[in-house]
């Protein structure tokens, strides 16, 4: 990350604005700093994650020179917290006073459904985005899927980036710059006990090797040995998309927030068959606790129970089923790869304490304390951050 902090802030201090600007411009040319706006985009199966760097060190002259549509983009993004019906800025995640490529600014985190992608491209055309001559760095499957649409509809060329490269680069960067002075990383203390289970910040010092479990619509599991040395161990199609999809079908809900809200009120043991429901208690021959789930949705084999079940219980059972399954696969991969640190990221974990605690518990319990589950505050945005960094990097090394 040699290109990030050059200590050039000091050069500006106490200098007349003009000289500073001049120097900065020449420096910008020398280092071929990309022109604003700086975006990084991650177009996933369900959500588009967008990070936007808002420079706060803009001089008056710079502001004068700034073309109108660039200004309007900046104002539009920074003065709103919601865009259209479905776009949201996660204000609480904003990274303030960050220095990137010699500029100081705030990094904004914005998301909207992938379904709204055509409208987004439309907007890019309406705002004449292509005139800004910026490179739009994009990762995620959508970078490939929508490449033609960007070109034909908005006259924009995407710089397509691999999503796993971006994920790892972005994650390591955000962890390094920290979350406005606080640790980016956290874990759950006492995961076995719901009463005393608490979130604790921690550092991701010496992060390798780590098992990185990215839970988006689906799940990818990576073994990461260094920033550039990693492999995708496996993946599963039972991910966030499965949770939301099944919840919509089972309960008629429409959003992730709604589904989680219902799940938080439900009781999965009315839906799942537990070991004790079958054996009357623990299954001692195999060391299975009576409270362990023997069959997810197992009670739903019975018509009577299907007729009397609540939507909340169904939502909870769906959440627990998907989460435990991810935990189980992640744990097996950790053992097979001989990695003790498991980092869970992805938007499935957004506002989803239930799943995080379950994962923390599952890692701890099944490994007898050997494995630790770690979580990161910027859950699903690392791919987009990684894409932005690629923008700053590529233009730097011609």
């Amino acid at each position, binding site marked *: 990350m040699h290109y990030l902090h050059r200590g050039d802030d000091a050069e500006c201090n106490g200098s007349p604005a003009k000289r500073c600007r001049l120097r900065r411009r020449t420096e910008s040319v020398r280092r071929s700093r990309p022109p604003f706006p700086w975006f990084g985009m991650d177009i996933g199966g369900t959500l588009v994650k967008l990070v936007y760097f808002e420079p706060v060190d803009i001089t008056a002259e710079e502001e004068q020179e700034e073309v109108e549509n660039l200004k309007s983009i900046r104002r539009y993004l920074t003065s709103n917290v919601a865009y259209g019906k479905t776009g949201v800025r996660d204000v609480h995640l904003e990274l303030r006073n960050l220095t990137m490529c010699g500029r100081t600014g705030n990094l904004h985190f914005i998301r909207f459904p992938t379904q709204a992608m055509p409208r987004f491209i439309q907007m890019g055309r309406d705002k004449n985005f292509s005139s800004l001559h910026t490179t739009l760095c994009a990762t995620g499957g959508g970078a490939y899927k929508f490449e033609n649409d960007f070109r034909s509809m908005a006259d924009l060329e995407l710089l397509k980036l691999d999503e796993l490269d971006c994920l790892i680069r972005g994650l390591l960067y955000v962890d390094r710059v920290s979350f406005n002075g606080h640790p980016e990383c956290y874990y759950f203390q006492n995961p076995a006990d719901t009463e005393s289970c608490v979130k604790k910040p921690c550092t991701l010092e010496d992060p390798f090797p780590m098992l990185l479990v990215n839970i988006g619509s689906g799940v990818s599991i990576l073994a990461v040995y260094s920033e550039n040395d990693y492999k995708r161990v*496996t993946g599963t199609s039972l991910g966030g998309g499965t949770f939301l999809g099944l919840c919509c079908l089972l309960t008629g809900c429409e959003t992730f927030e709604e589904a989680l809200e219902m799940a938080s009120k439900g009781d999965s043991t009315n*839906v799942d*068959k537990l070991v004790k429901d079958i054996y009357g208690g623990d299954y001692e021959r195999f060391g299975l606790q009576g409270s362990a789930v023997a*069959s997810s949705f197992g009670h739903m084999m019975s018509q009577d129970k*299907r007729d009397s079940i609540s939507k909340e219980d169904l939502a909870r059972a769906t959440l627990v089923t998907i989460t435990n399954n991810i935990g189980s696969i992640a744990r097996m991969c950790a053992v097979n790869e001989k990695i003790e640190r498991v980092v869970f990221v992805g938007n499935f974990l957004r506002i989803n304490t239930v799943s995080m605690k379950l994962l923390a518990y599952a890692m701890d319990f099944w490994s007898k304390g050997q494995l630790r589950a770690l979580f990161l505050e910027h859950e699903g945005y690392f791919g987009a951050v990684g894409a932005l960094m690629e923008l700053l990097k590529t233009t730097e090394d011609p």
Partner: protein
Amino acid sequence: MDKSITLPPDEIFRNLENAKRFAIDIGGSLTKLAYYSTVQHKVAKVRSFEQNAELYEISEQEEVTARLHFIKFENAYIETCLDFIRDHLVNTGTKVIKATGGGAHKFKELIERKLGLKVDKEDEMTCLIRGCNFVLRNIPHEAFVYAKHADSEFRFQTTHPDIFPYLLVNIGSGVSIVKVESEDKFERIGGSSIGGGTFWGLGALLTKTKRFDELLQLASKGQHASVDMLVRDIYGGSYGSLGLTGDLIASSFGKSATADKGFSKEDMAKSLLHMISNDIGQLACLYAKLHNLSRVYFGGFFIRGHPVTMHTITYSINFFTKGEVQALFLRHEGYLGAIGAFLKGAEEDNPNQYSWGENYAGSSGLMSVSPEMNPMQRARSGTFDMLEMDRLERQLVNLPLLQDPSSYIPDTMDLTEDALAREYWLSCFEEALDGVVKRAVASQPDIPEAIERSEKFRQKYRHKLQTLRQQPFAYGSLTVRSLLDTREHCLNEFNFPDPYSKIKQRENDMALRYYQKAVKSLEQLSWEQRQFALVRGVLAGNVFDWGAKAVSDVLESDPEFGFDEAKRHSLRPALLLQGPPHKCALFFVDNSGVDIILGVMPFVRELLSRGTEVVLASNSGPALNDVTNGELQILTERIAAMDPVIQAGLRDDRLTLVQSGSSSPCLDLSRLDKVLAMVVRERQTDLVIIEGMGRALHTNYYARLSCESLKTAVIKNSWLAERLGGKLFSVVFKYEVPPGKPSQEDSSAPSTPS
């Protein structure tokens, strides 16, 4: 409950009179009952007479043998069945019934009240593993690989002598993954709550369909791509750098959150099936990898013969292991719990000390559960599925001279995979049926009810052939051997233990009269001429085979068809007996009469004269006109009385008669009498001769042995001769030397008569 069902006593719950040691496995929808019983049936015996015109006396005696019965039926019939058992249970000291399965608890009171037996519960998983070990050990072709789009959906695996270690993935309502290392050592290494119950429960919620089978039906008609988010839905194509193709599922049910329209039941069921199968497959692979296991068997009600789930699990395992691990399924998977519970209760009988064999006459065979695939199955008798296993008199082991026991496949042609050959042989056996029935009746001229029994035999065997036409995989790989063995089992079932006994006796008697003359004429020949003549003699003798239709037609119509006649059909020999003499030759013999007496014995004599010890292996029990060990004992004594060479051989223990352990016209070198294996080892056998179509052509043609071997037969079937590129009465004379040993001559068959 269907009270109207009546149970025919001679078809279901057979041999209840002597039943003991009951075990029951009650699952979610099916009950499996197991019991041990003894079966009284006729066996053929021969006994030598000193002062009699007859060569030996033939008698049919009653013999009691042990049999295991396993019956599977729907839980709805449980009360009817218990009543039936109570009414037919005559006299048993049984006080306890072993029980396992989730339903054992629910029906405990009913069973105790109806049968007056104490229900003794056994651990489900322990029973499952015990049962699994038992079938893997005792039933060849128990395990199979499922391939939906292949010519034959079921590819059966040869039984490995060493069945451990393996992984058993039991998919019931949840999933248990068990690592089995030995008979008693196994461990549940993992599991998952996403299993059959999840498919059923979640499927019922999503589709409002109640029954598991119906859900599978729905799934088999659905398109999951409308519900699932595929890689191409995200990428627009494949994710090339990771090698993920566009049609892979990225997120199960991923489209159902955003779609504004509803989904069809079929599509949702299909998506759910994929989700669950893939998940189980993935976990199984992770565990297999962690424990370094390559044999992974799948069972449980989620699998239970359902082509749909076998296919999706197979697909998943292939995907996650890149083809390194194959998903294996079991023909008798549904019976494992009942078998295991039974074995737990029968420990004092030491059932694991014996070898057992599947009785083809009494077993239903593998039925596909899919009604489209199997229109026959839902007939009334399909409600009850049966497995019967006979306790074999002898423990069966591998021939120690097999080059690679784990890759040995006895059968030359797999009719499950070869539709043309299957059609030919099924028709061939159907056409021959009249003759077999006639022969069976003729073998019991003084017993009036023999005709009635012979008709029952006809019906039974014809039904088997019809079943096999529909479902060639019913009893494992369909082969000429299995068709022959099934016929033998059916004949035995209806008390025709040895339809050819009289014919064999007559022919043995006649051939004996020519023995001295034949030996004398051989002795007059020069050494080289004699070698030719000896081989020609074996081949000519082998033409006399009532089992082969082409020959029996000639034999029936032309009583003058003599040995010299047959000799003309034979051919050029090979110089097998050149060079230093062998230490010991093992000779698997075929037919009685001319074949054994005038063909084989002079050859044996030559071997003995050369200083080679000889072990003659013949069938333990009758099959067609093959000479049995009992008959051969008598014949050899008679010959010894005429021939000092044979006499000396017997006296000095250089000529030994052993039984093969089989009652089949074919030969499975992986299931031979333990004594035979011991003798072969002790004598340092270095030459194996296998004679006859059944043993050297239908089976073992491709068998690789670790010593010199000769496979020889006369092709007495024109279709087969044509298929092998020869003519009727062509000769197979296949002399092979294992790699690394000097060859004398390697002539391969078939060669046309000279």
